[in-house]
């Protein structure tokens, strides 16, 4: 029954927002009575569990070799629809630290994170310190924020800072190390942000329109001055109506938009309907390629990192809509020429 004990006591009793010392002692006394040896120190090479790839990647960058980072969601998995298995939950329960994206991206799993935190693990949402002014929310529904903040690189730079701060909190000994890693990584992200601004503003003004399968690109659009039109709504249950498709076809034909895009984790049937619609009106629209929205590329490849994913999106969009960008992207590392 070692594993039961492990999951009762084998982790640090830290609370993300700071429990008082008194409660902490009480809690550990209580748990120590439930199981004899309550250890409160973080083991060397401690375990961090994360949810989607974008979170896993920045946590890896900041944690470096000080922790084992393991992500729950693989490539191409839509976090809106992800269902955890028993092994995933067991992993979560054993983890010393848990990072998730937040803002309801993980749906009802958010309840589970809350409970795991209450049981004593250190659980952090990387979006928890984003300024309210940064967050996009529908006018009529206050508080139901668009969760796709990583699409604006400056937003994800804030997330990197949250990761560094959180890790310094649970492992103060290496605080300087985490801060240094975060700073170094954020310099790269700042370069990416500049590249995105430059590449996307080179697209002729009337063509700065991004049409994709679902509503994941609003932060992207705001940050880089591109008008974003999703075909279906944010919910995966949402469907595009014939009127929506026709309106978009009119728009594409009027503005002579040369390309629209499919996404790695969403079905492309609506996008194909658009292409057909434009063809029947004598306007050739091509599918500009596959964008990464809620999931990244293959693990181990450049596109399988957050940097590569955004570089891929930016380069693809800029070149397909008639802007200027190097065909292998910012770092010359993209697998395909765009």
């Amino acid at each position, binding site marked *: 029954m070692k594993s039961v004990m492990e999951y009762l006591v084998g982790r640090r009793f830290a609370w993300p927002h700071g429990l008082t010392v008194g409660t902490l002692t009480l809690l550990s006394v209580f748990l120590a009575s439930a199981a004899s040896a309550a250890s409160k120190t973080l083991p060397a090479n401690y375990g961090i569990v994360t949810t989607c790839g974008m979170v896993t990647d920045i946590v890896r960058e900041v944690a470096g070799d000080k922790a084992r980072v393991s992500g729950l969601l693989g490539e191409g998995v839509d976090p809106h629809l992800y*269902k955890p*298995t028993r*092994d*995933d939950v067991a992993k979560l*329960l054993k983890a010393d630290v848990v990072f998730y994206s937040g803002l309801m991206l993980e749906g009802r799993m958010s309840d589970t994170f809350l409970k795991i935190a209450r*049981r004593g693990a250190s659980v952090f949402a990387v979006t928890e310190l984003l300024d309210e002014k940064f967050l996009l929310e529908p006018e009529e529904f206050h508080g*139901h924020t668009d969760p796709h903040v990583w699409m604006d690189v400056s937003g994800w730079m804030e997330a990197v800072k949250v990761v560094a701060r959180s890790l310094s909190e649970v492992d103060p000994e290496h605080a300087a190390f985490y801060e240094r890693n975060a700073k170094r990584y954020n310099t790269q992200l700042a370069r990416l942000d500049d590249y995105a601004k430059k590449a996307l503003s080179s697209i002729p003004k009337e063509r700065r329109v991004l049409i994709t399968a679902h509503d994941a690109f609003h932060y992207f659009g705001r940050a880089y001055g591109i008008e974003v039109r999703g075909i279906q*709504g944010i919910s995966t249950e949402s*469907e595009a109506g014939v009127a929506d498709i026709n309106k978009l076809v009119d728009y594409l034909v009027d503005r002579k938009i040369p390309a629209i895009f499919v996404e790695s984790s969403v079905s492309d049937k609506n996008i194909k309907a658009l292409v057909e619609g434009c063809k029947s009106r004598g306007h050739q629209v091509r599918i500009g390629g596959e964008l990464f929205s809620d999931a990244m590329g293959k693990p181990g490849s450049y596109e399988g990192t957050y940097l590569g994913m955004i570089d891929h999106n930016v380069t693809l969009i800029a070149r397909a809509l008639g802007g200027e960008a190097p065909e292998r992207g910012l770092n010359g590392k993209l697998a395909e020429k765009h």
Partner: protein
Amino acid sequence: MNWTELDTWIVITGVLVCLACALPGAFLMLNRQSMLGDGISHAVLPGLAIAFLLTHSRDILPMVVGAVVAGVLTAVLTQAVQRFGQVESGAALGVVFCGLFATGLILIRVASDRVDLDADCVLYGSIETAVVDVARVPRVALISGGLFLVNALLTVLFYKELRLAAFDPALATTLGFNADAIRLGLTLVASVTTVLAFESVGSILVIAMLVVPAATASLLTSNLSRLLVTAMLFAAASAVLGHIGAITLPGFAGRLLGHPGLGATSSAAMMAVTAGILFLLVWVFSMWRDSHGRPQRSTPT
């Protein structure tokens, strides 16, 4: 296999949910309404949308209330369509749940397209995560245990009425029971059970347990009380074997196919698959038995 407390709670909760669903499921089958659960899994959408539009919240309480109302509405409307439209029960359910689901889609498209509001995101739980709880006994185990107790109690209390309404509605009416009222009561209880179970363990397990154990049991016996007990046995067995299968089979199959280190698969889905496999085995067994000279099954009595 590395059995932990987590597995114990998944199995306990799974068994309780499966038992709670198998009981109304057996009566639904006898009334030819087995697909009620599937219908409700679609019909909750407008309930979620309206609850959200009224409260501007995606918290679990308004979502469950909305879903329960939609589920109850499905039961009532199906009965009404069947009775006044003179259609077969399956068709009546089809008309109602498609109508409700489509209404939900329109509501979402018109009113809240920038909020993620599908049942997967805001309503359906999953058995693996639901058993993680602060308290010693997870809330989800209490809910499913409560559902099972209430359903068992109702079955015992209304056994005679349910039986008559299922087999001989005309006789029931002559004897002074209102067969329609009893059937309505059954579908109402089944709807509430379904929605609460959705909230705890997700949709697929619930839909499967409303249908499959009862169908399996009906291959073996034609006596109602035996049917109920057998259905419950198969439901519980599916939960236990299903979870064991979910945590052992992927690794086993992975080693065979050269992909070692595969982790567990979805327990709820595996429980549903196990129920299907048990049905298949029993079906083969009953064919074999029938071909060996045992008298043919008569209709249940």
